């Protein structure tokens, strides 16, 4: 589903020596599979995610989603790609407090041209699946953190995306809620046949994914169980 090949992204610096944020990264994620990119802060995780989301263009390499190259898309096509093909979940939920929970969940569907009433009908089973259907007409400020995150996930999955990108989705949650969300993401990917990429530095997240890679200094490696302590000392590692 997602095929990343020899991806390179460098950032120029004032000193002249560019930062190699993503340095020849290749990996593949199949439909229904949830893969973790595990690494410390500054390792290039977010840059990799931005490249896959077509938010920025790589210096070289290819990103194929469903066989289509997305790394050279123009702004309009990139937006369309994110609207229809990508679901994005992050640690901040970015819900619009003036809208109800269900309105927030259908923003993408309505943005893609669907009538709000139809969008509502379509999202309701997903909200039920996520356990927040009873909260649908409530304002985000009336929901718990976990419920807000589930609304954000519903929004991400509302368009049946082929790709789910999750950037530290449990960063703002306690352990119990983190586990619930991770289990949910894994389950949803499997059930909906969605390829999922989970960027995290939380070792606990690795227990919920099908495969994991470690990213350090822009280079990707197969994750080994004894790597889990590395992200805890990123500064020391880097120095």
């Amino acid at each position: 589903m997602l095929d990343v090949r020899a991806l390179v992204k460098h950032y120029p610096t004032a000193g002249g020596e560019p930062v190699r944020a993503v340095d020849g990264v290749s990996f593949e994620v199949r439909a229904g599979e949830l893969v973790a990119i595990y690494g410390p802060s500054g390792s290039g995780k977010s840059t990799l995610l931005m490249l896959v989301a077509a938010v920025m263009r790589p210096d070289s390499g290819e990103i194929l989603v469903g066989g289509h190259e997305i790394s050279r898309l123009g702004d309009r096509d990139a937006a369309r790609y994110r609207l229809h093909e990508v679901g994005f979940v992050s640690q901040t939920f970015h819900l619009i407090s003036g809208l109800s929970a269900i309105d927030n969940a259908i923003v993408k569907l309505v943005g893609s041209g669907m009538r709000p009433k139809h969008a509502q009908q379509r999202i309701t089973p997903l909200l039920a699946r996520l356990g927040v259907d009873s909260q649908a007409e409530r304002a985000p400020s009336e929901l718990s953190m976990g419920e807000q995150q589930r609304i954000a996930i519903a929004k991400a999955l509302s368009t049946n995306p082929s790709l789910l990108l999750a950037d530290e989705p449990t960063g703002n949650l306690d352990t119990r809620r983190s586990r619930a969300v991770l289990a949910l993401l894994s389950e949803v990917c499997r059930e909906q046949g969605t390829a999922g990429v989970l960027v995290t530095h939380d070792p606990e997240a690795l227990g919920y994914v099908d495969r994991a890679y470690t990213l350090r200094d822009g280079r990707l490696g197969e994750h080994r169980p004894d790597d889990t302590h590395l992200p805890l000392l990123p500064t020391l590692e880097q120095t």
Partner: protein
Amino acid sequence: MSPRNLVWFYVRRVRARLVQETFAAVGIAIGVALLFAVLVSSRSLSASIAQLTDGLVGHAQHQVVARGPHGFDERLLTRIGSIPGVEAAAPVLQMQANVVGPGGHRVVTLLGADARLAELGGTLLHGWSGGRLAQLQALVLPTSVARPLGVRFGQTVTLEVAGRVRQVTVGAVVGHDDVGPLAETPAVVAPLQLGQQLTGMDGRVSRVFVRAAPDRADAVKRALESLAAGRLDVRPADSEARLFAEAAFPANQSAELFAGISALVGFLFALNAMLLMTRERRRLIAELRMSGYGLRAVLQVVVFDAVVLGVVASLMGVGLGELLSLHVFHPSPGYLSIAFPVGNGRTVQATTIILAVAAGMLAAVLATFVPLAAALRAQALDEVQDDGLDERSGRIGQKRWWLFIGSAACLAITTAILVFAPGSAQLGMGTLVGSMLLTLPVVLTSVLGFAYRLRRRFKSVVPMLAVGELLSAGNRSVGIAAIAAIAVFGSTAIEGAHRDLQRGLDPNAAELNRVAPVWVTPRGVSDTLPTTPFDPAPAIRALARDPSVRAVQVYRGSFLDVGDRRSWVIAPPRGARDPIPPTQVITGSVGHATALLRSGGWFVASQAIATALGAHVGDAITLQSPRPTRLRLAAITTNFGWSPGTLVLNADDYARAWATMDASALQVALMPGVSAQAGLRAVQHALSGQAALAAHTARQREDAARATTRDGLSRLTHIATLVLLAAAFAMAAAMGGMVWQRRRRLADLKLTGIGSRALWHGLLLESAILLGVGCTVGALYGLYGEQLLGRALNTVTGFPVAHSIGATVALGSLALVTLVAGLIAALPGYLAARIPAEAAFRD
């Protein structure tokens, strides 16, 4: 916290919020600037009169003053000087005149005086010895007159005065170093004897200023009154300033009221900018408290913020106000210069600066402390652990009924003022603005609530985003809509009342002048109201020979001081078509009053003059004219636009009461079939030997009268326009700031696939909703404000006001604010909507 630490802390924080801090400072500065400029403009005219009065009267306490333009016999001076206790007495001849030089012409006050005036201690003749002044045989011009006319010492100017035209040498040009602020007044001095020759008033003076021994002042006053014998007035030496204050009161009152509205707009701008920073400020306060700072330290930080903001903004405002005052609100004496020696010099008083700066500081303190109150109420931990959501919505909804009740109460008070006490318009405007600001949140939340219910009916995501964001923004949305409302309210009320006033004055100008197709008056702009006397016989003889002329009638008029009011006396010929302007009668019948006026022994007075005289229709009173005369009141009218008040009697009664056969104007009736233009040419030809007289058609005089009143009222239009523009920019800036702050969330929406165009359209829709609601509420309240101001102007000033509903003004203001603010706000919206989705990944 030590001052050093406060500064250190402030400098570091201000870097992070420079844009918002600038918004707030600019907002306050705009309010301060408008307040400052309007105050300078309105106070400069009063200051001009006060300076001239001080320069003239020195230490004199009393004056004996003539009731008419012909003055009184100067030999009275000897008798005044012989009154026990009189230390000094100085005669002054005073008359309005026109000075013509290479650079144009100026209306001036010609003062004939001698060295005795200097003995009173005034600065006008400071440094001039008696002999030097007497020998001069020339005019002394202040720089404010000489410079624009382009004349210098030794050159000759043309003086048009009392129906005469004379060439006079300029004997001296005096500046600030010679006579202080008097250099800015329009006072032209001539030796007394020369002045008498120029005006044809040999042996006569207008007034005598008297300085009495301090312990004999009352006795001297009684002796002067006895000497005046009811034919002259005995008044305080500085009464001219009081008379002017009464005359300028309506214009100054309205200007200061409107300046208050301007300041309110500026304050709302600042408050709005502060609201944009509320979250940051609350977090800062919460973090300080979490770090162990006590309430005192928090207050120190906030007060320091307010002081810095207030000082910087006030200084900016005073600078901007100075520019406005120089280039937009330049003091214009307008029609008042006909009756008062008022110049157009600018005077910046210390109290004006203090008042403007105090208003700026107050705005800064209030704007800073509103978020503080909210922050102190909140739990510190909640603020530090902010959940990323916007302001909590729904608070306004909970208070809806209280807001509605408060608004209704304010509106009820306004209505009571409108009906029972229209003179208290300032309070009424305050309660009306209060009602509007309380109504606005209710209307806005209702509109948003309605839009929220409709949000799922649209196929586009744009309405959903716009409504959601506006509901999220809470108080900030209300703040922006409030600026729109205030702007349109102020503009509609001010400009609407201004137009009503102008519409009321226009027919009056027509009715007063259309009684004759051609008028002959002494040359000079000071005769828009014909009040300068001249001998009519030569002109009547010349006109009688012209075949185009059917008849010539003598019109008389002047000013008469009634209490503190310098009333305008209008004395049309008995046979005039409409001696009383038909639309201006308030009490009594036009037809009956006209018949009585023609029969003689009757007069008509404006409301304020009737009140000052204590007269009702039908009452007989003794008019304190040069020869006191008993007349009966036939009707009560408006004041025809002359704010101190008017008196109308027939020309023959005037001749008896003023003891003169002089005319102030000639009304020329033309033969059938002769047009006004042809008649004008014929009259001008017939008067070719009378250089001092000028002829005009009724239409020309009507236009001149309208231009004069428009000039006097132009400040209102300037204020209304500036309020509108300032508010439009304020809103644009506030909306821009609000949008700019949301860029991160816009980036998140872009990450979910919402395109730039949809985001921009959403932002435009937000602006349109806020502007639409704010402007509509402002326009509706503005129409009510127009009625209140109109009634106030009518009641307090006696001006003829044509009451109407200024829908055109309201719609125009609404369209202008919406367009300007919408267009300006569209740019930051467009730029913000183009934020790359990549920004969503930044902290």
